[in-house]
């Protein structure tokens, strides 16, 4: 699993990358009450705002970590936003992306580096 500076995790699944937010991020957000997902089959660029998460405290965005195509979204989050707090690293994945080259993931932090960043 790889991690971004924006507190997303990236997990390779076959030729796809699954994206979610870290436990640290979900704790900082507080109780999530609303999730808005992108349309599948959307081409996105790294840094695009692709999802909205609203907690009881505030709204925040999930940015596309890399260039690629969104091929699947986790509709369960729309009906059960609380999953983001309950199982951020598992059931609460947000979307799956198809990349030209999975090698771009090498640039992201591994778990130790991420844990060091959040200190």
């Amino acid at each position, binding site marked *: 699993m790889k991690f971004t500076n924006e507190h997303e995790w990236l997990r390779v699944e076959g030729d796809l990358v699954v994206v979610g937010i870290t436990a640290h991020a979900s704790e900082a957000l*507080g*109780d999530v*009450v*609303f999730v*808005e997902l992108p349309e599948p089959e959307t081409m996105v660029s790294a840094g695009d705002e692709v999802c*909205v998460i*609203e*907690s*009881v*405290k505030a*709204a925040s965005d999930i940015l596309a970590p890399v260039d690629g195509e969104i091929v699947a979204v986790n509709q369960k989050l*729309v009906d059960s*936003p609380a999953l983001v707090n309950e199982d951020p690293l598992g059931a609460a994945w947000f979307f799956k992306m198809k990349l030209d080259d999975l090698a771009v993931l090498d640039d992201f932090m591994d778990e130790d580096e991420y844990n060091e960043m959040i200190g």
Partner: protein
Amino acid sequence: MVPFAGYEMPVQYPAGVMKEHLHTRAAAGLFDVSHMGQVILRPKAGMEALCLGFEALMPVDVLGLAEGRQRYGLFTNDAGGILDDLMFANRGDHLFVVVNAACKHADVAHMRARLGDVAEVEFLTDRALLALQGPAAEAALARIVPGVAAMRFMDVGVFGEIWVSRSGYTGEDGFEISLPQGQAEGFARQLLAMAEVMPIGLGARDSLRLEAGLCLYGHDIDTTTSPVEAGLVWAIQKARKAGGARAAGFPGADRILRELAEGPARLRVGLRPEGRAPMREETALFHDGAEVGRVTSGGFGPSVGAPIAMGYVPAALAAIGNALDGEVRGKRLPVSVAAMPFQPTTYKR
């Protein structure tokens, strides 16, 4: 922790906003609101002169407030806007006033400037203020201060150095407790040791008051909103309205009495977004494609289980059920005008 009116305040304790909110409605929540301003007005020329002087600052009946009772008040300006909202209590030989933290220095200056002939304005900076709210608040507080069980909504009582009112900012039964700052931590810890009581941060304080339809000064009311526009007509007693015993005679009376007679141009209303997306403060409201108002407070109501908001719309669009759109991240989403409070209140009348 976040900065709030010059204080470092917790948004939430470890339980989180949702659990804190629901716990307050189910049992009892303890709030540290010591940042609020506590003021004693001591009469220089008798209580009647003091009450009449205080009445000259707001469209509220002060003279008619019985001893041992508390009332909601609003300082108005000459344009009929609201300088602050407050609670005041008649404690027999003086008035006790609690004002908002962000306004307290201005309020004290205002009272000193305007009440100098009739009152000694004592700004109390050595007292803490706690609020204990929820259905178990009475049982919990009565273990320490047994006398509070006999109090009704908006009663005030003095128990030695501990001053209690049966009131709050959540829509629940509960108490606000003023006490010497040196006693506050021990008192709070004694309450928190009880199974029913959980500490509550600013996040849940906001969601609880929003569900109760209560205004937050600086957001839902300010110097540009009149009490009539804000739907606070219930706070203007008969004595101060046209034809009353002491009609007018408060700042902005022209506008406020005119709006009472003719109706205001706009009104604060409750709003229920139809979808799950919260409509937060500053969300623009549309009717037939035209912008007609703004959300002044909005978020998710944990007890309602859905997003809720309040805001100002033209009076012609303020009927319950009226359909509007709110613009969230560039999209216009349906929202309808709804009755407040969103959550039934449980005051012990």
